[in-house]
């Protein structure tokens, strides 16, 4: 649910990175934080366990520039991916404007990807949203690993709607910004549709 402030001429949108545990959601945000100009980013918050597993959420505010005189700000969130944190994932999805689903390319994690995708659909539905109606992109992370499943297989199983998809290696940043730009564009295009 984007927020339009006519007084300060700002548009604020929320993007949530979703996916199974250890797929690379936090790594995506960490890379974005590392590589973004300090003038356009805020502080990154990570609520995590001692072993650096996301406990509640990561948060990174970004200012992407001006569009028609309005400053566009995107708030990036990640959810905790471990299965038993479902209650927290529901809360973080509240007010979402765009979703990045980060799939773990490893063959052994295919089932976890599909479980997480189902979970995303269910949690969105509880908010009155349908995944095929929400600005949504998929990132196939860890493309560099030797046990990475073929892209065709991942696409077939994880992307039935044919949404924009990107291969990535979040640890080096490959595909990270392309993914972010794609989902941000979809969110703005969606707002444009609503405005007309």
């Amino acid at each position, binding site marked *: *649910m*984007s*927020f*339009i*402030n*006519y*007084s300060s001429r700002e*548009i*604020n949108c*929320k993007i949530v990175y979703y996916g199974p545990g250890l797929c690379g959601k936090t790594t995506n945000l960490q890379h974005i934080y590392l590589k973004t100009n300090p003038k356009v980013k*805020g*502080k990154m*918050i990570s*609520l995590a366990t001692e072993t650096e597993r996301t406990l*509640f*959420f990561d*948060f990174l*505010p970004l200012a*992407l*520039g*001006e*569009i*028609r*005189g*309005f400053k*566009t700000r995107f*708030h990036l*969130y990640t959810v905790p991916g471990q299965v038993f944190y479902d*209650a*927290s994932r*529901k*809360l*973080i999805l*509240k*007010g*979402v404007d765009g979703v990045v689903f980060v799939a773990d390319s490893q063959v052994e994690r295919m089932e976890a990807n599909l479980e997480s995708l189902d979970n995303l659909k269910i949690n969105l539905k509880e*908010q*009155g*949203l349908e995944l095929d109606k929400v600005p949504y992109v998929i990132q196939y992370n860890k493309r560099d690993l030797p046990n990475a499943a073929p892209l065709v297989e991942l696409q077939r199983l994880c992307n039935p709607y044919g949404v924009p998809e990107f291969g990535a290696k979040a640890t080096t940043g490959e595909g990270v910004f392309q993914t972010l*730009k794609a989902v*941000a*564009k979809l969110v*703005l*295009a969606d*707002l*444009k*549709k*609503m*405005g*007309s």
Partner: protein
Amino acid sequence: MHESQLVMQQEDFDVLNAIINKLVRDANARGIFVVDKAGQLIAETGELQGIDSTSLASLTAGCIAATGGLAKIVGEEEFPTHFHQGARDNLHMTLVGDRMILVVIFDDRSSLGLVRLRVKKAGNELGKLFEGIRKRAETGAQSLTLPFSEITDDDIDNLFSD
């Protein structure tokens, strides 16, 4: 279910700022924040130096969301008021309507009793304000021109050009 987009006009902000500026004086508070449940900062006033209000808004929403989840587990609808006592500064959070949170930071220049008293009145006024905004959005009564209708695909592409 799915909430409508929140659009605030200048006159809404004028009313909002008047309410929270009065509250910060009446409650002898250090700072006041209005945050939506999705973590967006709506308005702020007071002695804000050194406070990262963007992070505060996000964490406030997270805190409210988490305790809302706890409330349902114990059979409550929600816990509408939170108070956190610090060594120097204290935090008072109240839910306003369905989707807003009023945050008051105060120190020993004020007291919990005074804050609660003033927040009650201000909360009612804010509730009426946001209810009016919501109704306008739902009935389409607002005669505003959303900025997005004029956005072109090139505008969006230019935002991301390197």
